[in-house]
């Protein structure tokens, strides 16, 4: 029964991810005084891509067709790990947050390989940029995660959420630094402004788009969907770890209903904050990105240090 619920939750997660992308796009359009597309536009685009015939270049190897499935599978598996509506799902018990970072890395690795596979200049350029960013973002993310793990003495997400809930409203400097670091990492990893612009195909600046330039049809649909899931993953991770209030603890319909409403409300708010930040900032030069991520790492490191220095008694 629990496994069925976990499965249903993952399906719900994956099916709501395009809606979050649509919501963010809607808010952003309204902020910039443009007429917004409908909230279900991402679903329509995915459906259109699934109907179209994929075109594969002659020089592509098996890896090129294989990669979208790996990327999508790793995104869905990470969605299963992160507590979404309820904590203590059986799926979250078998994998901890380090596995989650590993899944992110797996998807990114295959996407970068696929970008280089066809042999076009853009693909290779995008892959090299993506890897540069990833190699800087991953330590920052791990450091933020370790800060959390040291406070809660666990790397399991559900147990960590329990710990935060049980200790009540505590003003922890380490959590606030880790949250700030994780937010910056999330911006970089999901390819939003100011690191990457998801809405453009400008040659000089694109990162994520450059890697998937050769994809079409259902392959592209899987990659797009996976990146929407990944955006939502970061949102859920940040909302549920640092503000876990409202998450369901048993699997009764009432608790689950409240948990669902709570996470939807949190994502709604995050989906307003992100476009506001994107509207306020301009995209930065590519060579400024290492500084940006160095700052994220510094924040996470300060989180760790302030945990050790200020929060632990001796």
């Amino acid at each position: 029964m629990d496994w069925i619920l976990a499965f249903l939750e993952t399906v719900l997660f994956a099916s709501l991810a395009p809606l979050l992308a649509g919501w963010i796009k809607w808010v952003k359009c309204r902020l910039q005084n443009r007429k917004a597309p409908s909230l279900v536009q991402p679903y329509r685009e995915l459906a259109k891509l699934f109907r179209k015939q994929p075109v594969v270049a002659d020089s592509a190897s098996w890896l090129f067709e294989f990669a979208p499935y790996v990327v999508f599978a790793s995104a869905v598996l990470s969605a299963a790990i992160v507590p979404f509506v309820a904590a203590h799902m059986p799926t979250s018990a078998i994998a901890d947050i380090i596995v989650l970072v590993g899944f992110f890395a797996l998807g990114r690795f295959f996407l970068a390989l696929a970008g280089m596979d066809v042999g076009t200049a853009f693909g290779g350029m995008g892959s090299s940029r993506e890897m540069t960013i990833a190699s800087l973002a991953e330590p920052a993310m791990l450091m933020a995660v370790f800060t959390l793990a040291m406070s809660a003495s666990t790397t399991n997400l559900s147990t960590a959420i329990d710990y935060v809930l049980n200790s009540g409203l505590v003003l922890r400097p380490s959590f606030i630094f880790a949250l700030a670091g994780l937010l910056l990492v999330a911006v970089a990893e999901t390819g939003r402004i100011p690191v990457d612009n998801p809405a453009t195909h400008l040659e000089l600046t694109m990162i994520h788009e450059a890697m998937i330039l050769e994809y079409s049809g259902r392959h592209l649909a899987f990659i797009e969907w996976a990146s929407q899931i990944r955006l939502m993953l970061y949102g859920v991770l940040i909302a549920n770890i640092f503000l876990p209030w409202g998450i369901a603890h048993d699997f009764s319909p009432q608790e689950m209903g409240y948990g669902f409403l709570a996470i939807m409300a949190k994502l709604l708010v995050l989906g307003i904050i992100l476009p506001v930040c994107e509207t306020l900032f301009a995209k930065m030069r590519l060579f400024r990105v290492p500084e940006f991520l160095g700052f994220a790492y510094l924040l996470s490191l300060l989180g760790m240090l302030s945990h050790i220095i200020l929060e632990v008694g001796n």
Partner: protein
Amino acid sequence: MDITQYTFYEQAILFIAALVVFTSFLMLAQRSLFGLIYVFAWQGLMVSMTTALSAYVTQFHHLYVSALITLVLKAILIPLMLHRLIIRLDIHREVETVLYPAYTMTAAAALVMFSYYVVLPIEQLSSLATRNTIAVSLAVVLLGMLLMISRRQAVTHVVGFMSIENGLFFAAVASTQGMPMVVELGIAFDVLVAAVLFGVFFFHIRSSIDSLDVDQLNRLSEVER
């Protein structure tokens, strides 16, 4: 003692103490002089806030006076004076090059850890809730020194010096509930006078070497070689 056992105000002290270190890091990364001074003003404001909070927690009322002096001097008066000086010296468009930013940041993080290990035995002697922040204040002192070492602009050196003073004041508040009022007033006026003297000194440096880059003071002879 774990942070969950502290009261909310004590948690707030610890939180602002962490922010004080953060401002020290920001100063190290800051390139523009105005940005540096704004961050310095924020640091003064935070130090004054922690002082006021520990006055509230411990019910030592003389600390409110210290908090007020810090607020007026470090967060308003000295930043304002430096701000006007920069405009009068016409160097507000100058962007300082930070040499080896990555190494500086790594060194800064290492200094924070070092000050934690140094202070560990001292913290055992204190019974105050704020004793954990002694390491933070030592870190602020060391980071101020690092700021002075790693930069060449004379204004930056003054800000680094003032930031060291912030750290020392913070240490006094955190470990012993503040210094006697006479000492405190003396230091406050010393700092103010120092700021004024530095201002005069800037003009002298500039008129003699035509720049505020202290690296040019290495040359002894006045003849260009």
